[in-house]
Structure formats: C-alpha cells, structure tokens
C-alpha cells in the first residue's frame, strides 16, 4: 500500500490554475522532498495533502483511503510550519499537548508522551518556557515535537528550516533525517533549497510552475537529470550549459568535438544543449576523456575544494576541483578533461534529455 497517492491533482484559485495535474506515489515510511523555485506550487500541494486547501480536481489517498472530502483532523497527518505556528501564550509542554488534549487523550498518557518526545528532542529542560523565551532552533524542535507526539501516519513539513541561520539549518537537517530513520513515519517535506532536498530525501520531486519535472533518488537526479530545468536546479554551482551540435563522433561546440557516451547516430545534426557538471571534470588526462582548452580567470578556494572560473571559447564555465592542501598548482591550468559518460545532452528546443 502506498503512503500518500496523488492522482492528477489540480489546484485552481478562481480562474488561475497553479497546480496542473500532479501524479505522485509516496511509499510507506518514505521521506519525499518536494523541491522547486519559489511560487512553483509546493506549499499548495502540501496544503492540499494536509486538507488546508481544497483539491480542485484529482484524487488524493492516504494509506489507501481517498481523503478528498475528509477533514484535516481525520486524515491523521501532522504538519510543521515554516514559522513554527507555536501558540505564544502556551509553554512548550502545553504547545505539544495541544493536539492531544483536543483529541481527549487521557492526562497521564499526554504527560508520558510529552516526556518521551521532549527527551528525543532534548527539550526536557525547556518544557515550562514560553516560545518567546526560546532560540530559533529550540522553537523549531518544539514545532517538530508537536507533530511527533501525535504519532500521525504522515508528517508534512513546509520549509521548516528556512527561518534558521545556515549553521543551525545544517544541524537541524541532520536531526530531522535521524528522527526519520528512528521513527520511520512517511514524510513529505517542502523546500526551495536543493541542498536540503539532496541531503534529506529518499526521493526528490522537482517541481516547476505547478508541474513535476522529475522524480527520483538524489543521485539519479544529479547524474541523469531529465531536462535542462532539473539539471540547472540541482547541484551547486549549477551544471555548465553550452549550445552544440551532435556529430558522428560526439558533440561539437565551436569547432571542438567532445566525446559523448551512447549511440549518437540517430541524433546527428541535432541542435542540443551540452551539460557538464562542475564536479565532473578532472585535471588529469585519462582514458575516454576529451580535453577542453580553457582560459582560467579566477580561482576561488573553498577549503578542500576550489572553483575554477574559466573561458571556454565564448562560454563562461565553472569547474570544481580538489585543492589537496594548496591552490598553487591550479593557477596555470589550461586544460580540463571531461569523461564521455559525464557529458549530458538536452534537446535545444524542448530542454529534454536526449535518449542515448
């Protein structure tokens, strides 16, 4: 049985359709991340699952039961909001107890639940505090705690980390993933941050403009993006893109032919976008690689890695390479080598990956 099943889900506000028929299966215990640029309909989709927005068309099932017409409270989902939605007049314990009291859980049981969850989230010392007296990270944990105590079938997260500073975000990200490994509750997590998506997800759903662009594991999406949008959205820095033409031997860019894996014969003459990830070049010539002559104009050290900003013909490219403790050896780089299997081709018109 699937955890959450979206079949042709459409959302329209009046005449404006913002989600255009989404199909998605979230497996039981799976952690799925919806990622995409701001305004692409992630929150709307999540809120339809929660029952906070009406579903205009299509069918939504949770654990096998169609819930289109079921009230949010009876869907057995818990949601963590971006601004935490903590009740300012209640202390941490009462905030966590809110949903349980509404459900008329017996008092001793509520107390036990809160104790357990507070221990998991290291909130035991703060149970008496009001939200205003907590740090951002602690508030975030209370918001999670409030969802966890309910033992729902599905967790829904709407950008729960975006109000935290970068360091705390990294920390909480790991904590959320650890919690998921421990509790194993089906989770749908919305973010616009591709790093969060890559690190948290069992499977990523890339959305754009109310549509799903691609669904897959983080590595599938990283290695084999289905189209230019996904290629450009995931990865940092993003994939280098250059226009080229398919030939018998490879793809031609400004007179230079780059070897490409796969069978090109059916595509010869086709205008394409050539995509090369910054990470997927090496400074050593190896078997199966093509040399790209470059004019290096900037080396940016990041510590263990460095970014090389370079001109390749008329194109401005970025490469990522290891520093091995020093960047001195990078200053006179004049060629980088790209393996044929790392060169991705997308149709110049549709942006779809070429089937090779």
């Amino acid at each position, binding site marked *: 049985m699937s955890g959450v099943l979206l079949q042709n889900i459409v959302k329209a506000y009046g005449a404006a359709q913002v989600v255009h028929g989404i199909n998605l299966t979230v497996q039981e215990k799976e952690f799925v991340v919806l990622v995409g640029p701001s305004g692409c309909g992630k929150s709307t989709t999540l809120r339809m699952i929660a*029952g*906070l927005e009406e579903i205009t068309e299509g069918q939504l099932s949770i654990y096998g039961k169609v819930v289109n017409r079921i009230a949010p*409270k009876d869907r057995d989902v818990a949601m963590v909001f971006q601004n935490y*939605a903590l009740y300012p*007049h209640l202390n941490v314990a009462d905030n966590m107890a*809110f949903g349980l009291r509404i459900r008329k859980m017996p008092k001793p049981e509520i107390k036990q639940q809160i104790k357990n969850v507070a221990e998991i989230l290291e909130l035991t010392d703060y149970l008496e505090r009001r939200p205003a007296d907590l740090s951002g990270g602690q508030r975030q944990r209370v918001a999670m705690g*409030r969802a966890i105590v*309910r033992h729902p079938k599905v967790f829904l997260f709407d950008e729960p980390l975006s109000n935290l500073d970068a360091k705390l975000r990294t920390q909480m990200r790991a904590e959320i993933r650890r919690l998921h490994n421990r509790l194993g509750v089906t989770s749908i997590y919305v973010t616009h941050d591709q790093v969060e998506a890559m690190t948290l997800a069992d499977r990523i759903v890339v959305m754009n403009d109310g549509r799903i662009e691609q669904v897959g594991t983080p590595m599938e999406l990283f290695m084999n993006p289905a189209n230019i949008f996904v290629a450009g959205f995931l990865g940092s820095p993003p994939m280098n893109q250059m226009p080229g033409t398919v030939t018998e031997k490879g793809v031609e860019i400004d007179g230079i032919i780059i070897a490409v894996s796969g069978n090109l014969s059916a595509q010869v003459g086709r205008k394409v976008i050539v995509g090369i990830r910054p990470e997927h070049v090496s400074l050593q010539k190896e078997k199966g690689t093509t040399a790209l002559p470059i004019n290096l104009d900037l080396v940016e050290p990041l510590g263990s890695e460095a970014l090389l900003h370079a001109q390749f013909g008329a194109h401005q490219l970025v490469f990522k390479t290891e520093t091995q403790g020093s960047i001195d050896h990078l200053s006179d780089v004049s060629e980088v080598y790209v393996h044929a299997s790392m060169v991705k081709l997308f149709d110049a018109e549709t942006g779809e990956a070429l089937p090779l």
Partner: protein
Amino acid sequence: MSNNDTVYINQKSFKEKLVWLLDHFKREWQIYVMLAPMIIWFLVFLYKPMYGLQIAFKDYSIFRGIEASPWVGLEHFNDLFSNSQFLRAIKNTFLISFYSLIFGFPVPILLALMFNEIINAVFKRSAQTIVYLPHFISTVIIAGIVITAFSPSAGIVNTVLSWFGLDSVYFLTKAEWFRPIFIGSGIWQEAGFSSIIFLAAIAGVNPSLYESAVVDGASRWQMMWKITLPSILPTIIIMLIIRIGNLMEVGFELIILLYQPATYETADVINTYIYRQGLQSGQYDLAAAAGFFNAVVAFVLVMAANSISKRFSRTSLW
C-alpha cells in the same frame, strides 16, 4: 536603552547634556513639530485650567477673581462630604460605571469574536456597518431616540409590552429603570465601534496558528477559546485598564439629557452634580472641589489598574 547608556549620560556634565539636547532637537525637529499640536492642546485645554483648581480651596467669587479670593482650606470638601446629595452622586457614579463595565465591557469583545466567525464577506461588512453606525449619532439624538423608544404612549417598548397585555410604563420617570436604560443605550451606541480595536487585534493573530490547530483537529469553538481569545488578551487588558481609569467619567451629557428630578435618586452622578452646583447655582468653588475629588479618584484608579495588570499579566499601559 541599556543601563550602560543611562550611566553614561548621567555622567555627562550639564553643558554636555545641553549640547546633546540641542543636537537632538536639530536632528529630530520634524518629530517635535508633529508633536506640537498635541502638546499645545494639552497645555491650553488641560494644564492651564489646572491653575483654576485652587478655587476648590478658596472662597471664590467672580467679582474678586481667583487671586483675591481668600483661602478656606478644606471647607468645601467638608461641606461636600456632609451633603447627602453629593454622597448619593458618588454612589451613583460608581454604580453606573461599575455596571457599565460589567455589562458593557464584554460586549465589544463578543461582537468582535462573532464578526470573526462570519465567513460571508458581504454579510460581515453590512453587519459591521450597522453596529458601527450608532457611534456616529450625536448624543442629543441618541437621547431623543431613547426618549421616543421608551415613551409611554407611542414608544416601541411599550407597544411591544401591550402586545403581551402588559400595562404601559413611563420608564424614564422610574428611578429603578434609569440605570438599565442608560447602560443599555450606552452599549447600543458604543459596543460596535469599540469592537474595531478587538477585530484589529484578532486580525493580527498569525493565521498559521489556526491552520496548525485545524490539522490538530480543533473545532472553530475551540480555536476561538484557545487561540483567538488568549491572543487578544493583552489588548483586552489594555482596554480594561483604560476603562477602569475612566470609571469616574460616566457619559454625563446623556444623563443630563435623560434624567429628571424623579430619577435623581439613581441617575445623579458627580459630573451632573458639579454641573448643577457650578453652572446652574453659581457655586464654582464647591463644584471645583467636587471636580478635584473626581480627578484624584480617577488618577488613583488608573495607577492602580496599571500596576495590578503589570504585576499579574506582563501587560501594561506604561
């Protein structure tokens, strides 16, 4: 400002402070220009008249003027507190205020909560407009409406009573009916308009609190009690402090327009007493003493309400 800053400023010499102040005015003069009309209004209409307060302690006559009238100490206060009419006015002031507070204060809050539950926007706006309207009607017309409504011959109230076979009552001549009528018409006039401030407070509540509660399974009723009401509690407390501070200020224009000697027993309040003694009988000094007493009590009430609220709810006016 942190403690450190305070200490720092205190350590400056007088001259340095003066320079700082001039500098401050130079930089912020626009703000003071905007403030000026209010300050001038306060000075002219509230502070300058305070000079005349001294006649409460003098044997004042218009012909001698304030300066030349001889001091008489607390004589007027002695007179007042041995005067049964004044004591009755104090009692009536407190009772009318107290009942207005008990019955009138919750009404705007209830109205605001009710408006908040109305989903249909058109209905909501019309309902709001209807309850706001009486606020914009002048007191004289309000009094006219009340008098007409309760008139024994053609008044709507007595007409309704007659449908049930009840005898008509001349309400406005009955002392026991004065307070309910006065307080009721006060609520009718102001409750709608006063609800605006609570509606504004409700509008400020973070909507995701409600969404979170919906997902948790709260009903609308539970959300009203457990989210809306606690969220606007600070506003309620501030309004309560202001109300308690104004406890001595019953709307005496309406009383003057509605009362008559037959209802003085329950209707005469300190301000109407002052009005009759001062302006109608020309006993300005006695009236000033009564007004002074009124002001002192009001001042104590505001201070007390504020400090109590500060202690118990972390909310206060200043």
